[in-house]
């Protein structure tokens, strides 16, 4: 359960707000909910490691928006998303709650799966462009073996 939840939360956090918006509108009967925490913009300190493997240090912050909701059916959802889009975090929280309830299959197929595919598609294009810039070395014959 936690692994599934980690996975869909990751998709919701990293997706673009307008993509979440697009697939959100495909859900019929959008649920009634109340805010446990209204959308709130803040920062998270991002850490790195010295020499990539050593002790941690503080690199700099990133913006993040969070929100918590309770559905009329009782499920509680938390939305943590990158950036400063309040609607994005609100939708992430509602979707997180829906995914824990009886409508999880519908929400997964209408929102999470297409969002994940969109992201993977963009990543794949980038990785293929990078691969096209990989250097093929060839050594010129120097002639001393003749």
């Amino acid at each position, binding site marked *: 359960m936690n692994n599934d939840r980690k996975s869909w939360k990751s998709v919701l956090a990293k997706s673009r707000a307008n993509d979440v918006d697009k697939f959100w509108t495909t859900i019929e009967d959008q649920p009634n909910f109340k805010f446990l925490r209204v959308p709130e913009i803040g920062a998270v300190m991002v850490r790195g490691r*010295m020499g990539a493997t050593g002790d941690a240090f503080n690199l700099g912050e990133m*913006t993040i928006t969070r929100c918590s909701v309770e559905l009329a059916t009782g499920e509680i959802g938390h939305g943590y998303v990158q950036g400063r889009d309040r609607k994005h975090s609100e939708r992430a929280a509602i979707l997180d709650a829906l995914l824990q309830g009886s409508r999880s299959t519908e929400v997964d197929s209408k929102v999470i799966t297409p969002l994940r595919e969109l992201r993977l598609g963009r990543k794949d294009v980038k990785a293929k462009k990078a691969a096209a810039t990989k250097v093929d070395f060839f050594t010129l014959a120097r002639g001393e073996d003749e």
Partner: protein
Amino acid sequence: MYVAVKGGEKAIDNAHAWLAEDRRGDPSIDVLSVAQIREQLSFAVNRVMAEGSLYDPQLAALAIKQARGDLIEAIFLLRAYRTTLPRFGTSHPIETEKMSCIRRISATFKDAPGGQVLGPTFDYTHRLLDFKLAADGDIEEAELASKPLDEAVPHITNFLNAEGLIQQEPNTDTEPGDLTREPLELPANRALRLQSLARGDEGFVLGMAYSTQRGYARNHAFVGELRIGDVTVEMDIPELGFSIEIGEVEVTECETVNQFQGSKTEPPQFTRGYGLVLGQSERKSISMALVDRALRWKELGEDNLGAPAQDEEFVLYHCDNIQATGFLEHIKLPHYVDFQSELELIRKLRREAQSHLQTQEAAE
């Protein structure tokens, strides 16, 4: 005597209105959108995020627009905004080993596993002005390889580690200090030095790094590896009781491999410098790695050669362009009362000197 001075409101209002008009420029030219800056001036956006110490391309682009392209002013705006944000927490250290690299090169190993991946680089361009850009030309899409680059590319320093030829980075789970929470005190540890350099002025850090190359505390650096790409950011969420991924940031990482003859305390081996910067900035990350290495002289048992790049007080107290510009530019603001007292002092000294002279002349 203390004289309170008021006034100038009207002049200030008018000055700001003119600033806004000048920012817009010639109204017959299309207005520049924040999205255009974000997408098309991405290195400016990256610099503002790195030195503003806040990863948010949209805000950085807005700051650049507001500052009319003055990047230090834009960094100032972003830093000021940053202080208004509540801190929700601290991420796990990012795992650059798992970076989705768009660029990854090594100057030390030609056949490094994972390969030399150039990415979207200025290197090997001829630095000739491209007049086609002055006309609105369509661009061709970049070539796609049939297969994507490997998911995770191993770090080059691992290979030297395997032979035991390179100094190991200690991993002691020490909680790093945060100079946005407590003022920087000296001597600083490496965590604070790296945080300070990561947000330090690119020009200043570049100059310091260059000075080490020219012989002021030379440490002969090779770029063991330089990589740029996206890394996932993960954080513990108390209300969930587990950690989740909260986003993805693009970073530039540089690991230098430095010649080292050995010292009183360390055997001959390669030593390391480390640069990590938010966004794409390889000049800054290489510079950071060189300066990081120079500042490590004490822990490596090297001699203090008195070089500026070895002097942590000099480097860390002067690399922050917002502190520097704040103090520098404040001297143009009204100092009428300060100056009045200086004026009084000089007049008094001259009067005294004059009367001293007259008494002397009278005595002779």
